[in-house]
C-alpha cells in the first residue's frame, strides 16, 4: 500500500480496519454462538453435577473437567484435525463452534455451580420448612440468588471467549486474526495490520470490561446486602432496585 518506514504503522493502521471488519463479524458470531449455546449447556451441566443420579453426575463432571482441563487450542485441533482420523469430519467454522461451545459450557458450569453453592443452606431450609418442593426451592429461592452471583463472572467469561476466538485462526476460520495474518503476509506489514486488529479488539473489550466492572459492583451490592441479611445489620442497607 505504501512504503514501509519504521513508524508508518502508527498512522497507516486505520486503512486496514475495513479489510478486517468481516473478520470481526466472524469473531462476534463465534462468541455469540459459544456463549449463547455454551451457557445454557453450562447451566444444565451445573445442575447435573449436583444430581443424585451417579451416571448423570459423572457424565457432567467428565465433560466439565475435560472442557476446562484441555487448552482451547488443543480442543480446536482435536475437533478439526483429530476427529477426521476417526471418521468424523467438520468444516473449520463448525469445528470452532464445537470447541468453543464445549469450553464455554465447561467454564460457565463451574461458575454456576459455585454460585449455587454460595447460597446459604438456611435459604433452602426456610423454603422446605414452608413445604415448598425441591423444584420450587431451586426455581424461586436458590437460582435467583445464584444468578446474581454468577452474572459478573459470566460477563468476564464472555470477554475471555471473545479473545479466544482469535485462536480459531489456526484452523483456518477467517476471523479477525486470520485475515490480519494473511494480509500481513501478503503485504509484509504485520505491525500495521496487527495494530488495526488490536484496536478493533480493544474497541470491543474495553467498554465490555467497564460494563462488567459496573455490573459486578452493582450486583456485588446485592450480594453484600444478601449477606447483611444474615449478619442482622440494624442500619438500613442501600436500596437496591432492578436486575
Amino acid at each position, binding site marked *: 500500500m505504501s512504503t514501509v518506514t519504521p513508524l508508518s504503522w502508527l498512522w497507516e493502521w486505520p486503512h486496514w480496519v475495513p479489510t478486517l471488519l468481516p473478520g470481526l463479524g466472524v469473531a462476534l458470531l463465534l462468541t455469540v454462538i459459544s456463549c449463547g449455546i455454551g451457557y445454557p449447556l453450562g447451566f444444565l451441566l451445573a445442575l447435573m453435577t449436583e444430581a443424585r443420579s451417579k451416571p448423570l453426575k459423572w457424565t457432567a463432571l467428565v465433560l466439565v473437567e475435560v472442557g476446562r482441563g484441555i487448552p482451547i487450542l488443543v480442543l480446536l485441533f482435536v475437533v478439526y484435525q483429530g476427529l477426521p482420523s476417526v471418521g468424523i469430519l467438520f468444516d473449520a467454522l463448525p469445528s470452532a463452534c464445537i470447541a468453543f461451545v464445549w469450553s464455554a459450557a465447561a467454564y460457565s458450569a463451574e461458575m454456576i455451580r459455585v454460585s449455587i453453592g454460595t447460597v446459604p443452606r438456611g435459604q433452602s431450609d426456610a423454603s422446605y420448612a414452608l413445604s415448598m418442593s425441591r423444584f420450587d426451592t431451586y426455581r424461586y429461592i436458590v437460582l435467583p*440468588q445464584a444468578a446474581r452471583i454468577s452474572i459478573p463472572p459470566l460477563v468476564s467469561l464472555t470477554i475471555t471467549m471473545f479473545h479466544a476466538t482469535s485462536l480459531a485462526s489456526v484452523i483456518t476460520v477467517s476471523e479477525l486474526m486470520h485475515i490480519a495474518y494473511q494480509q500481513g503476509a501478503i503485504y509484509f506489514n504485520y505491525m500495521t495490520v496487527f495494530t488495526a486488529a488490536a484496536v478493533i479488539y480493544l474497541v470491543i473489550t474495553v467498554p465490555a470490561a467497564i460494563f462488567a466492572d459496573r455490573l459486578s459492583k452493582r450486583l456485588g451490592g446485592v450480594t453484600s446486602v444478601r449477606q*447483611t441479611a444474615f449478619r442482622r445489620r440494624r442500619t438500613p442497607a442501600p436500596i437496591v432496585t432492578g436486575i
Partner: protein
Amino acid sequence: MSIHTETSPTETAPDVSNEFVRAEHLVKDFGQHRAVNDVSLSVAKGEVIALIGPSGAGKSTLLRCLNLLETPSSGSLQIAGERIVFEGDNLKRPQVLRLRRHTGMVFQSFNLFPHLTAAKNVALAQMRVLGRSKKEAMDRALTQLDRVGLASKADAYPSQCSGGQQQRIGIARALAMDPDLMLFDEPTSGLDPEVGAEILAVMRALAGEGTTMIIATHEMEFARHVSHRVVVMVEGAIIEEGAPEQVMSAPTHERTQKFLSAVLGR
C-alpha cells in the same frame, strides 16, 4: 387484629388429652455423633412447650426432626394423625410434605429470602404450595404482616429491615401457611434484648390465641411465664420435663440444676 395483648396463656390451659404431636423414641445420628437420643414427646393442641438446655444439647436438631428438615435415624413421629416410622431410607416425599404441611418454623437467623420483598416472602409459599392466587396470597401476606405490626414494611427488602423486623416477617411468613404447630428455634438469640422482647411479645400473643408451639429458647423468664411445660434436653436426651415453676424452682435432675444455675446465675 393486633396481637400485642397481655393474656397469660397459662390461664387457658390446653386439654392435654387432646394429643396433637407424638414423637416416640426419636434418634438422630450425624455419623458417629448422636444428636438426638431416644426422645419421646407428646404435645397437646394449644400447648406451649419451652425446650431448654445447654448449647449442643440437640434442641435445634430435635426441632428440625419434627418438621423433617432432618430425617430421624429411627423412632416415629405423628402429627395430626399422620404417622411416620423411621427405619432406614423408607421416607417418601409425599409423606414428608403432608406431615410438614402442619408445621411452621422460625429460625434463629431469620432466613428471609433476600431477593424478595417482605410481602413476597410471606406470599410465595402460599401461591406455590397452597395454590392461592397472587392477589389472595398478597392480601393474606399483608394481613399477617399487619398482625406482627409490620404492614408498613410490606414493600421493603429484608436488608432494609432491622433484625427484629426481619424476625417478625419470618413469623408472619410461617403463620401465613396456617400451621397447626409452630417451631421456634431460638428466635431471639440473634437480637438485642429489647428487640428480642418485641418478638417475645408477638409469641406471647400467639400463645394467648391458642397456637401450639415448641420453642427452643434461652429466655428463662419467657419459658417460665409463657410456656405450659418446660422440657430440658441434655446431650440429645430429655432429662426432665414438667410445669415451668416446678422445673425452674425445684428441678429434680442434678444436670438441670447445674444448667439453670449457669443460665440464671444463681
